[in-house]
């Protein structure tokens, strides 16, 4: 029996349908909650979010994996209400987007303590919400190199993944050698790790895609839609055609069974303006048509959006 933790309970992977594997209901850096610049009324937050989830559902989307870490405005009660009212499965994460988003209580903590936190959130629940985390988020801090804190978080995540069977999503796939060493040392199969943002404009040139694949890791093309063609693209944007060309190249090399795709969009950003014109529905409106144009067949598209994520998200303890 396959099991996936969603905010409304554990479900069989067979129910997931199309999965957006790396998204955000709303992301904000820790401390942004103190700056009223970004505050939104609940009316506005729901108004910005519900139509996007509804459209996602209408497009055939089944499951939304929220990759918002513990201190980044993760709001599980809110996710529960969104999921219940839109019918979209929402998977919440434990972990941190990167060491630089872990607040002092966690940044000072030992690997053992961090692992206990992650395991608790996956097996018992997040806070008093009753909802269990379904994935573990880790990441590389700003600066391009894994910091000592990043490494502690990766190691704790690895231990939690081994114990619980939950998969790990990474923010950035740069500097992956220390990560792979840690995962190997902890006895975690790299098949349980999605090395994410391998496609973003800033980091794709310094991400060793082939090496990650050769180690057995999964590769995330999960910033689809942050295109430089947008009116006000973010600094991690990339030319639309270049991203797709890169992606097709990896598919043609036979990597499709290890590739996962998503849009990393914010339904309603919490601590930053967001990127106008980019939503999760880029997956249906632009990414899939572009894939078809580029010659990727429907079986492969199903593999990318349904089979791979179902296998990845299933708890494998």
């Amino acid at each position, binding site marked *: 029996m396959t099991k996936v933790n969603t905010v409304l309970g554990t479900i069989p992977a067979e129910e997931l349908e199309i999965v957006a594997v790396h998204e955000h209901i709303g992301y*904000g*850096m*820790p*401390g*942004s*909650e*103190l*700056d*009223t610049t970004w*505050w*939104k009324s609940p009316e506005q937050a729901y108004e910005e979010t519900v139509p996007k989830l509804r459209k996602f559902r209408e497009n055939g989307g089944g499951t939304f994996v929220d990759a918002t870490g*513990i*201190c980044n405005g993760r709001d599980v009660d809110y996710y529960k209400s969104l999921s219940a009212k839109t019918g979209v499965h929402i998977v919440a994460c434990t972990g941190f987007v990167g060491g*630089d*988003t*872990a*607040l*002092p*209580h*966690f*940044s000072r903590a030992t690997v053992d303590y961090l692992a*206990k*936190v992650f395991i*608790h*959130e996956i097996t*018992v629940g997040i*806070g008093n919400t009753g909802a269990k985390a379904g994935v573990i988020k880790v990441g590389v*801090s*700003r600066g391009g190199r894994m910091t000592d804190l990043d490494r502690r978080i990766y190691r704790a995540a690895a231990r939690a993944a081994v114990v619980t069977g939950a998969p790990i999503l990474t923010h950035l796939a740069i500097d992956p050698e220390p990560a792979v060493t840690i995962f190997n040392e902890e006895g975690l199969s790299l098949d349980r790790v999605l090395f994410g943002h391998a496609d973003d404009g*800033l980091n794709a040139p310094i991400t060793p895609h082939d090496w990650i694949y050769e180690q057995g890791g999964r590769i995330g093309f999960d910033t689809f839609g942050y295109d430089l063609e947008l009116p006000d693209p973010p*600094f991690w944007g990339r030319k639309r055609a270049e991203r797709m060309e890169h992606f097709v190249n990896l598919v043609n090399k036979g990597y499709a069974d290890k590739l996962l795709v998503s849009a990393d969009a914010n339904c309603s950003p*919490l*601590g*930053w303006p967001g990127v106008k014109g980019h939503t999760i529905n880029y997956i249906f409106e632009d990414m899939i048509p572009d894939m078809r144009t580029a010659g990727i067949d429907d079986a492969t598209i199903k593999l990318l959006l349904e089979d791979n994520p179902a296998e990845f998200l299933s708890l494998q303890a």
Partner: protein
Amino acid sequence: MSHTPPVAAGDTFHAPTGQTVNTVLGPIPASELGVVAVHEALLSVIPGAQYAPDISMDRTEIFEILAGKLAGFREHGGRTIVDSTGMFHGRDVKLYEALSRSTGVHIVASTGMGPEEMLGGYFLTPQTNPPTPWPAGKFADLFSKEVTEGMVVPRVERRGAAGLVTTTAARTGMTPTEESLFRGAARTSLKTGIPVSIRFGADALHDLDIVLDEELPADRVLVGGLDRKDADSAALGVAGRGAFVGIDNVGLNDHAGYLTDHDRAELVLGLVKAGHADKIILSGNSIGVAKGQPDYDLPFSHVVSTFVPFLKAHGLSDEDARRILVDNPRNLLTVR
């Protein structure tokens, strides 16, 4: 030990009418402050601890503990307590309002943040390329709005005005972002009239000079932690510049890094003798409820009920005792 009951009429000496202090229940006449504990913590939460599965944040339990401690403070003559933890270390404005209403103790809450280690990534590695940490002007704006528009209940609402802006430098020495925090706090004070409370890093006079460099009058600044052993003799230098001298770990007698109360008393009496009685601030730096850190259960009343009588027994005059407990905090906290 005599427990002087609080005087209902409050202190009316040396406090011109119209001067006010910001409390969580609104501005009050400065003359009503009475005996003040200037550097304390009510609910003190290491940032992030509120999300930890092993830490309980039971509001009824927190309220009951704090209410008991505030009642004890009041029984010993305390009238006003300053929660000097800033805006990102567990401050809970609505809880403090309820506590103040329930216990009758005036509560002054603070804005500000620091040291850098305690900041969220929003201020240190913002989503820009490169991720440039916040400059002084942005901190000044953030803190000032907590006075002019009200303190934040994150992502929900603003409430009453902050009465103090507080910041801290790293023990290893002030970092560039901490310099921005200190300058931002000084500008907040200049703009809004609330005082600044700084806790120095490696060098008290250097850190004080950073806020004075913003042309903030020294009598708007409290330099805390001057009973640290590594403060050397900075207390005299701080008083000499005209700033308030925070001897604010009173009651801490078993820490190698701090003076004992015996030595603190000598420091206080020495400052009085040097003519600085009007610059001395005493407090206990106790923690009402600690989360994510060890408890520190010193009663909020320790200064007024134990340490000041000890000072008096060693020659402190009643007049100077009153100055230290009532007049100096009032002069510091009055919005100017």
